[in-house]
Structures are given as C-alpha cells and as structure tokens.
C-alpha cells in the first residue's frame, strides 16, 4: 500500500530515498566529495550531514579510485555504502575498483561474497561544463557483467529505484541526468521500490516505438506530443535499466508498431542503441519490422562548450520529431 504522493524534485526524491534507507538500516552510509556541509555539487545530499552526522555522510578526499575501493571494501564487510561521484566522468578514475573489483569479486570468488554498493553517477550534457563534465557513459558500464546499470527518469522512479538499488546485494550504478535534478513530480511517501530490471511503456502508441532513458525519455515524450499533432502516434518505452536490458518489452512493442528508433545521449557508435538494434534484429520481432531500425545518439565528438555546439552534440526534441516522422512515414 503506497502512501499518497507529494510533489518533489528529482534531487529531493533521491535525498529522501537515502534518508529512508539510513533510517531503516544503520549500515547504510554515504561517501563522496563535498557531500557534507556543502551538500553535494548538485545539492542532492543537501542537509543530510546535519541529520545523520559526519560518520554517515562522509566527505572524502579527492581520491576517486581509493574512495570507490573503500566503498567496495566496506560493502564486502557488512556495510551498505552509497558512493557519489561528483560528476560521473570522474568514475573514469575509479574504473579499476568498479570494473575489476566490484563487478567481478562475487564471480571470481565462486559466489562466496556479495558487493552491495551503489555508485551515484551525475551525468549528461546541457550545463555548459564541456567535455570532461558532461558525458553519458552508461554503455561503458553496461558492458560489464556483474554491474547493474539503471537510469531513472521521474522523481518517483528515482526514489524507488535508488531504494531498490540500496537493497540489492550487487553493485548498482545509478545514472542521474543533471538536467533532471530540478524537475518535479509526484513522489509517494515512505518506502517503496521500483524494479531494477523492467522497462516501462510510458506512452502507448501504434505507429512506431521509441526507446529512450532518463532525460532522453523526457525529450521523447515531448517529441511524441508534437508528433501526435501531425498524426504520428509514437509508443515510448522508458528503459529505466540498461543492464539488465528489458529486450522482451521492446520486442513486444516492435511487434505492434513495426518500427523502432533508439534515442540516447551517449556517443552513437558502440552505444546502447547498437545493442538494442541487434538484439531486436536477432529476435522474432525482426519479422515484424517494416523499416530499418534508427539510432539517434550523441555525436561522435567530445561534448563542446559553446551552447550551439553543445546542443548539436545531443539529441534535442526537434531532432527526435524529425527522425520519428521520417521513420513513421516511410521516408527513411
């Protein structure tokens, strides 16, 4: 029985999830750079240090590799750490501990251990922070067996998926698009979880299927409203989880609409869209396709600074509308 919802921002929903988890389990604690009195670079941890103290909301030195490793070691020994990367780009410094250690320890040790750690990954472009503070690296981590990679879109999902991630016995990377932090929506009170392995049909439609996640889902829904005015009825699937990928839900939709487009902010080449396209092409849904599968991904370039260039590097609403219209009307 889920309690009534209030309107919270995405950042507030994440903060509430962490507070609920810390109230419920003394082993849950937060680590990261400037997450204490500063409140986090994006004010996600906010006032939590005042409510839970410095032992549970730990400011770390600027030591991403060591810090991530400390989180892994704590997780191996009965704690439930949540490690905030100030920008997900900085997780590049910690890939050794994420990819070689957290993701593999359970398997390498023959199932003797679990690593219940959550890495929070503020990601994405659109803030004028340029190439080293704006990436969408979901596909990098989704390539690694042993990791779970999720990306909530709404405040309600952000809270429920983070609570599910904290309760999960395996390492989970939660990608939080920075442009979503201030977006608002209804969020139920109290404890609830949203599954980490299920995509959601967030807009039913008949003419084509558009698959997206996070901010790209928000833009796709906006594009779908525009498309509707010109008679194109798009079905929008919000992936929510990138590993595992809910290919079944995508195939079901494709069987209905016969057209598929993938929208993602990460670099187009070797990206999420490539995996979805080939998985659908390998499935029984392939026989239902009436047009090529379209990938609308990020540019094959580092994220630039100047706003006109930055916008051009990631799919915008108008790009989605145009590509979807072509696909739906057979102009591809």
């Amino acid at each position, binding site marked *: 029985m889920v309690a009534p919802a209030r309107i919270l921002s995405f950042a507030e929903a994440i903060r509430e999830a962490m507070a609920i988890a810390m109230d419920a389990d003394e*082993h849950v*604690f937060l680590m990261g750079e400037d997450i204490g009195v500063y409140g986090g670079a994006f004010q996600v941890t906010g006032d939590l240090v005042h409510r839970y103290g410095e*032992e549970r909301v730990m400011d*770390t*030195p600027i*030591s991403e*590799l*060591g*810090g*991530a*490793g*400390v*989180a*892994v*070691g*704590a*997780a*191996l*020994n*009965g*704690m439930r*750490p949540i490690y905030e990367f100030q920008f997900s780009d900085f997780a590049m410094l910690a890939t*050794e*501990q994420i990819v*070689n*250690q957290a993701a593999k*320890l*359970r*398997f*390498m*040790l*023959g*199932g*003797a*251990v*679990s690593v219940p750690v959550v890495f929070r990954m503020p990601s994405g472009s659109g803030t004028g922070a340029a190439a080293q503070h704006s990436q969408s690296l979901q596909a990098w981590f989704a390539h690694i*067996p*042993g990791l*779970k990679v999720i990306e909530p879109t709404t405040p309600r999902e952000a809270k429920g998926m983070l609570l599910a991630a904290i309760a*999960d*016995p*395996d390492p989970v990377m939660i990608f939080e698009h920075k442009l979503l932090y201030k977006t608002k929506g209804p969020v139920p009170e109290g404890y609830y979880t949203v599954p980490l392995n299920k995509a959601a049909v967030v807009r039913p439609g008949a003419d084509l299927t558009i698959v997206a996640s996070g901010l790209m889902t928000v833009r796709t829904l906006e594009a779908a409203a525009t498309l509707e005015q010109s008679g194109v009825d798009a079905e929008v699937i919000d992936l929510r989880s990138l590993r595992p990928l809910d290919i079944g839900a995508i195939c079901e939709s494709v069987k209905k609409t016969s057209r598929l487009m993938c929208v993602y902010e990460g670099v187009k080449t070797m990206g999420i869209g490539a995996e979805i396209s080939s998985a659908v092409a390998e499935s029984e849904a392939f026989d239902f396709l009436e047009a090529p599968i379209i990938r609308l991904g990020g540019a094959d370039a580092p994220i630039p600074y100047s706003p006109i260039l930055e916008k051009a590097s990631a799919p915008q609403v108008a790009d989605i509308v145009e590509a979807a219209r072509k696909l739906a009307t057979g102009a591809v």
Partner: protein
Amino acid sequence: MMDDRAASSSSRPAANRPPVYDRLTVAQVHEALHKMILIRRFEESAEDEYMRGMSYGTMHLSIGEEASAVGMCAPLSDTDLITSTHRGHGHCIAKGGDVNRMFAEFLGKETGYCHGRGGSMHIADPSKGNLGANGVVGGGIPIAVGAALAVKRRRTGAVVVCFFGDGANNEGVFHESLNMASLWKLPVIFACENNLYGMSTSVKRSTAVKDVAQRAAAYAMPGVIVDGNRFADVAEASFEAVERARGGDGPTLIECKTYRIRGHSRSDRNLYRTKEEIESWRKRDPIELFEAELEALGLASREQIEAIRAQVEVEIRKGVAFAEASPVPSAEDLLRDVYTT
C-alpha cells in the same frame, strides 16, 4: 597460562630472545613453523603439478617469503581480516586456509575455493577472514581500508592486515588509501612485502625513496622496517601494529624486506638478477632461520621439527589427491554467481 609462554621454556638469556616469544605459546610457535613449511611445500607441489601439466594458467610463487605471511598473521584471529595479492598462497595458508581447496582451485575443480572460477590469483576464504588474493597490483589496498572502516563502524574490534608488494607502492591508489586510513584512524596494518622486484623492475629503478616505509611519514603513520625473512621480527612488528590499531590509534606501515626465490611467474627467465644474488638470499631461507632459532632457544627439538615436516607431507599428499579426484565444473553453470540476484 603464563607457564605455557614460549619464553619461559627457554634457558637462554632474555636479551638474546626475540620479544615476540613472550607473546606466543610453544604450541603457537610450532603452528607458525607448520604453516611456513606448509606454504613452502604447497607451492613446490603446485609447481610440480604445473610441470606435470595438471594445472593451467599462471601462478606466482612466494617461496622465500613465508616468514612475512605467517609473521604478519601471528597476532590475528579468524575474525580479523586480510587482503592479499597475486602472490597470495602464503597469506591464505597463514590465515588458516585449507590446502585441499587451494589445490582444487589450482586444478580448476568445482571443489576449489572459487569453484574453479578464480584460480591461483583469486583464492579467498571469508570464513577465515581472508578477503582474497587480487590480480591487480594495489587492487586490495583500498578494499582493506574499506574493510577497516566497516569493522570500526560495526565495532567488531577486528583489525585488517593489507598485504601488498613493493610494486604497489608506486600505484596512486596506495597513496590515496594510506591517506584515508590515517585520516580516519582506521584499524588497518599495511604490510609491504618488499621482495626487491616488481616483476623485473628493481625497487632502485622504480621507487624514489630508499625504503617503502619512508612513505609512511607522508601519511602521518609509523613506518617500520623489519627483516622479512625472520618470523620473530615480522611477528613482533605485527603485534605492535595490531595493538595500536585495536587501541584506536590508526594504521601502521610495515615493510618486510624479503626476496622471491622463484621468478615472478612461469614466464620469468630471471634476466634482471644474478645467480649470486639469488644464492645469497637462499642462504637466508626464512624456514631454516626459524628452525635454527627455535632449536637454539630450546623452543623446538629437531625431532619436533621433523614431526612437523612429516605432518606437512601428509597434508600435501591428501590435498593433491583430493584435488585430482575432484569433479570439474559444469559448463552449464558458466553464468552462476555473476549476480547474487
């Protein structure tokens, strides 16, 4: 139980007796010798298995470094923790590991510590507090610090011994980890087994300071240098560091000066060091030094030592037989344990 203390059974003047024997019972001293010999014979047997084509992949032997593994673990109980390295057989046995399951892992068998998923470089035994060997140089160091953070928060009273080699002291994560451990006064002991070479590159050619222990000063913790081939020296330093850690005073860096008699791994042709150098270290064999000291101090007779050696041979034979008779994993189980749920 003071009468059982090792020191009281010796007739030697106290001044010549390493102080660690005041901390250990005779039975504990004999067990330390047993473990050192078991490590040596385990690795020699593993090498034989490899030569006979029974094992696969690579292995990193710690022959010549047994005193640092057993000495560092001397003050620890099963609830204390260690992190280990790619050269980790000694650490596993020192922490109470089962050679049957170690041999089985070597042979890639389902009965091995990792059910054949890890091999030599990933043997762990959480039931004995061994958080595992690690294939990445320095990979276990922040994990040890995190384990120390966990036991401090959970108030278990445990300490963590973090083994690593001289090669790891130039990894950035070594520095990040020592800084955090000291900053947060965590109960962790950093045990650097300096065997003079990171694969082929000597410490002189890789490390700007003369002694790894000097690095401790940068992180406001004690840096202690011990003769890593002498059990008593290593164990005494470990006892002192463990007391400091349990007392809430934070970490210590102990540098055990030792030597790896065998090559880095199976591919090593020893092109970077001389036969004379290897021979000079062979003369300081940690097991022979330990046995001689125990005999001189009256802590073990030659007969007792021979009995320990005979017992080890039985354990080794049983371990090899167990491993060879064990089933291989099923390919159908390939994806097992990628995830818990």
